[in-house]
């Protein structure tokens, strides 16, 4: 494991899960984890297990729901999908994230400019 990989911040994982489900549609835990790793191009260190508490959390909030299904290679698995409330939440959190990222970016570039 290289030290350059970033830890996943609490809360950002929720956003990542929501966005992934938004892109992929209904997906099982393994698929979500795989997708996040792919998109992060292995820059993120993710213990895939930590996904599950996040899924429980999101389900409790009513942003995702789960259903039993059969995976592409014929395994029984639970498929998670976004609810309408989840979609709204995703839009809100994404906007929020972008705003904060913008602020942080501007701050950092300013201080570098000094």
């Amino acid at each position, binding site marked *: 494991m290289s030290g350059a990989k970033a830890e996943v911040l609490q809360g950002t994982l929720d956003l990542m899960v929501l966005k992934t489900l938004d892109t992929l549609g209904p997906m*099982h*835990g*393994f698929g979500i*984890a795989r997708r996040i790793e792919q998109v992060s191009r292995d820059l993120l260190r993710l*213990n*895939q*297990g*930590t996904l*599950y*508490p996040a899924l*429980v*959390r999101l*389900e*409790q*909030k*009513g942003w995702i729901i789960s259903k039993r299904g059969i*995976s592409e*290679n014929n*395994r*029984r*698995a*639970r498929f998670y999908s976004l609810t309408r409330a989840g979609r709204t939440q995703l839009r809100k959190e994404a906007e929020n994230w972008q705003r904060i990222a913008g602020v942080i970016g501007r701050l950092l570039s300013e201080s570098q400019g000094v």
Partner: protein
Amino acid sequence: MTWLKVVFSRLTGLFRRKRLEHDLDEDVRTHIEMLAEENRRKGMTPEEARRAAMRQFGGVEQVKEECRDTWGVRFLREVTQDVRYGLRLLGQSPGFAAFAILTLALGIGANTAIFQLIDAVRLRTLPVRDPASLAIVHLNMNHWGSGSFSGSYSEFTFPLWQQVEKRQQGFSSIAAWGGTQLNLANGGEVDQAQAIWVSGEFFEVLGIRPLLGRLISPSDDPEIAGAGCAGAVDLSYSFWQRRYGGDASVIGKTLTLDGHPFPIVGVTPPTFYGVSVGDRFDMAVPVCAEPIVDGQYSFITGARARIDWWLAVLGRLKPGWTLRRATAQLESIAPAALHATVPPQYDADGVRHYLAYKLEARPAANGFSNARDQASDSLYLLLGLSGLVLLIACANLANLLLARASAREREIAVRLAMGAWRARLVRQLLAESALLAIAGAGFGVLLASGLSGALIAFISTPDNPVFLDMPTDWRVLGFAAALAMVTTLLSGLAPAWRAGGAAPGSALKTSGRGMTAGRRRFRFERALVASQVALSVVLLASALLFTRSLRNLLTRNPGFQENGVLVANLDTTPLKLSVAQGNVFEGNLLARIRALPGVAAAGISNRSPVSGSSSNEWVLDGKGNHPNGASDLEYISPDYFPALKIQILAGRDFGDKDTAASPKVAIVNQAFVKRFLNGAKDPIGKEFRMWASPGKPEPYYTVVGLVRDSIYNDMQAPMPPIMYFARAQFPDPELFTGPVALIRSRGGMAGLLDSVKNAIAGVNPAINIQFRVLSAQVRDSLLTQELMATLCAFFGALALLLAAIGLYGVISCAVARRTKEIGVRMALGSHPGGIVRLILGEMAVVVGIGLVVGLGLTLAGGKAASSMLFGLKPRDPLTLALALLILAAVGFVASFLPARRASRLDPTTALRYE
């Protein structure tokens, strides 16, 4: 609303725990298998692939535990653990647990009982349909109109009610009602029932449906009263049960009210007790039947109908109408309504005032209540005092728990050192006090339901029965639960907080091995004890104040001798006597009663003392004005004064020579002379006049006797001026329909009752009689004060006990902790007396601070009680000094015992003590 969803899913999660666990297991397994499969496809051996998968996934148990956390399972598991731990701890010291639960049960029980009463008289709404849209129509009299007022809520005369009914627009339905007592018996001893007169729409306004038969409707109460009134009676559920055992065939039977038969047409539902809180009704009778019962003196058809105030009015607001709008409409109709009903008996002044009366609509959701207005002050005061008792109980419990926590200091320190979570420790300690509080509240609620019933029974008298429906409803339970919560926090937070905040290192070091116990450590306990003492001062002072006030009342000389007097209230309406016949009849009656062997003296009046019945009239000065107001009055027979043992100071009693034809004479008391006769030294022979309605003569009365002051009705009021007139000189035949015989017994009252009853029946068997004992009547009028005194004494005693236990506990604990220090002092030659002085001195400071603060609190809060005290002020120095003295003495004893024990320690044992 997301949090709501979370809470809900957590709660449901608690019940679906097995399935959730199962799903999670499956999820995790599938995930790892998928990872492993992928790894195998990358070329790893199955074994390698599996191990890599486990690594990629991370700690399985950790993940599962985190999920369980999110479900709320861990929280529940820990709480269960805490509760079990708490139960075990309490089980180890059952004495402590029992004591704590008992004190809390007493504190919470007393509070809940009083709250239950307040709830019943103040907060609960009427058990009728949509009580919020009900309104009382109130007649605002800025000047007290004269006339006769009967019933507790007499606001309207019948003619005025008719005007309001005709002219109002704000109510979809409107009704009038009035309370009265009707006699169910036919002659002989009266069998009184509480009846209400109701106008036709009464039950419609309230939206009450019959339990049986039908309820009185507009067709039972035709416009033209008296004529065409068939009469109908609805029974209340409780009366139906009591009298008829709930027999359904009662419909159609006949009930005799004041000698007139009425058909029973229905029964009201059990929840309906009437519209006035604190009262109960036995039957409802249509208003139009009133002339049938009252005959020539009817409030409707009689000559005085416009000054007979006996009805109260309530209505249901039309949809969209507010109280404000209804009031505005009522205000606009008031002048016309009043103009049409001006009483012919009023003079110009009276008419001017009458026309200025105003009508307004008031909320009626809580019903009518005199009980509410009279009792609420004392109830709130009692609630405050019982709240203080609970506070003291909490302080006590906090102290005991602190002592227990410090005994476990080492255990806690070890657990903290080993990495226990502080919040968890705090929760564990709170669990213990929560258990105690819940048990205390449970027993408290049981206690309260008995206690509040006893309180009601206490304030209820035969003449003024109080009926309150007091189920232990959600409001009462909620109140008890809130008390339990507050108790938990008050008593548990301090020990928990301290234990949670302890530094493990120092706690491990100090425990047991220290030479002197840090003063700072005990600061909190001392503060608790000081506040206990302070609150106890308040409670003890109130107990003493109310007890002394009651004693003042009980020992007050009422001016008459109430012991040994039998009161016979007679109803002679069936006899239809004229004035002359009345005088003859009463003469015969008295002669027969006086001839009985057990009778020392007997007289007749129109009322008996402290019965609540009263009449008064303005006394005029030379110019016909009444600058000094009115005097109470009474119409009496000769020998009235000896019967009550009211001393005649000068002049003479009435006699046979005072007749309708002889000069008008009066006997007055000392207060009368002082107020109306300029305090004349010799009032005999002086003359005065009373106000009379226009057109009536205002004759001069000559004072022929002076008697000692006596109480008229109110045991708490100063001696009122009273004028006595001879019955023979009173022109109104109505006086003779309800005479009251006052009979002083010789030897004892046993057997007197029957012989008097026979004597009266011998004169005429149709007379209705109701007996009272004068001393009981006087005593009954003091019940509220007696209740206050009894409860306050109970609270005071409880507070004292708790404070003593608190003091004793804290000092014993402090002494135990300082055993070693004491040993050293003694080994160095300190005298046992010196040790006692040392400990007592420290406690004296604590108690002293408590006493000073308590005195301040009492002085500040005393105002609330001032109107309820008789013969002393709330700042009565003697009472306050006594309270302080008692507490100081209790404090001394409670600290002396452990101090003496300390001084008797054997130095060598003490030094070895651990």
